[in-house]
């Protein structure tokens, strides 16, 4: 076996460019995914006892509608592969737009499609993390707060929120790492992220061992950085 270290060195600039793009997609995807996830996760338990008292009158139906929309989103995304979602968004969605509107040259940039895919995909999983953490908070704490005459909003902000967020951190760490690795699938829509860069170098010099080992190590460094950041947050929070 001959391992040419110079191949690794030569490939680094291009791989770094790919890693930067991977990082960029991941960070934007995670931030957007958190927003989607929190909205859909809370949406799935809107108007239930988990968030305090049940609504009255018209709000009953509003909350039912919100629960159905959030639930449909989560099930739709969880139930289909992310690679299909990416290809649908990049290849099929513009055709769909063309078919139903007059816009002739509708196109989504590959990078934009990649970021949107991560946002929407991570959002669905994060929604379940949010929902699970919120419903795991002891209902007695809400009752204690309500019996002090404190508003539901204040209790969500000061009691349910902080406790639920602490419980979300370990599963969020999982999801962030999964989302980072999922960016490698965007090779299929031609985004020049880390895996794609590796593939291109490989195709020109056929040095599979050096390239894929380097690529793997670069992923490992990025996922470790994510994991350590979350660990840091976990430790900073008061333990109880």
């Amino acid at each position, binding site marked *: 076996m001959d391992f040419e270290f110079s191949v690794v060195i030569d490939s680094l600039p291009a791989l770094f460019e790919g890693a930067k793009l991977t990082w960029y997609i991941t960070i934007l995807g995670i931030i957007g995914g958190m927003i989607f996830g929190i909205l859909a996760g809370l949406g799935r338990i809107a108007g239930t006892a988990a968030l305090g008292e049940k609504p*009255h009158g018209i709000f009953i139906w509003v909350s039912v509608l919100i629960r159905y929309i959030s639930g449909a989103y989560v099930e739709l995304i969880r139930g289909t592969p992310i690679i299909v979602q990416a290809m649908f968004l990049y290849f099929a969605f513009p055709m769909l737009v063309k078919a139903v509107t007059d816009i002739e040259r509708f196109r989504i940039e590959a990078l934009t499609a990649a970021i949107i895919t991560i946002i929407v995909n991570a959002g669905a999983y994060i929604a379940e993390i949010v929902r699970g953490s919120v419903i795991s908070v*002891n209902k*007695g704490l809400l009752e*204690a707060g*309500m*019996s002090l005459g*404190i*508003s539901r909003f204040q209790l969500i902000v000061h009691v349910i929120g902080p*406790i639920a967020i602490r419980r979300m951190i370990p599963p969020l760490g999982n999801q962030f790492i999964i989302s980072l690795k999922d960016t490698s699938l965007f090779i299929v829509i031609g985004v020049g992220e880390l895996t794609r860069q590796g593939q291109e170098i490989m195709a020109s010099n056929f040095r599979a061992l050096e390239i894929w080992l380097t690529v793997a190590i670069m992923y490992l460094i990025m996922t470790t950085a994510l994991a350590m950041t979350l660990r840091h947050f976990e430790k900073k929070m*008061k333990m109880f």
Partner: protein
Amino acid sequence: MPNIIELKNVCKSFGNTEVLHNINFAVEEGEVVVVIGPSGSGKSTLIRCINCLEMITTGELIVDSIRIPDEQGRIRQIRLEVGMVFQQFNLFPHMTALENVAFGPRKARKMNKSKATDIARSLLDKVGLAEFENKLPGQLSGGQQQRVAIARALAVNPKVLLFDEPTSALDPEMIGEVLDVMKNIAKDSGMTMVVVTHEMGFAAQVGNRLIFMDDGRIVEEGKPSDVMKNPQSERLKDFLGHVKHH
């Protein structure tokens, strides 16, 4: 003394199961009412209806002259005047003892931080936990946690305190310290109290009135010593026989 709590023909159902049947019940200002009864008799549900943690199904509830169901929008007003102490303490686990007690005054009574903290300190002192103010609930014993919970309920300055089996989750050696705090509150401040408990000693010593519930109905009521000495119903005789052995 005028009635501060009144239940008129109150029924409460969970789904198709009626757990309170046509309850008529009133508490005067300053009165200490002790509610006893076997498990599943509806005593917890009864007091949870008073601060609207459970909504009554039919009938009328009047607390501090607020009428339910007519004035549903004023439930928070009721809760400000009716504090509650729970069997499982339910302290906020991420807040220190002091923060737990100061939380109500700050968020429900809209006090500034230093005033709320002063109130919290003096209440922790009152329940004998001044030196534990910076401990988290998880670092306190059950008895200490329950005393913090009592201080927390007192902190919003309610007119009524409800106790839902406050000593049932405690080790035997810690029951005394919690009952002592409750006795002091009843004697010193003349607080109106409704206490669900199995502590017959407490009932005899502090209670102005004893209520025996069975199967969602008030079966007997009267002066604690009278009710305990001369139980009228077979059900109460049987029940007293069981609790006295503990």
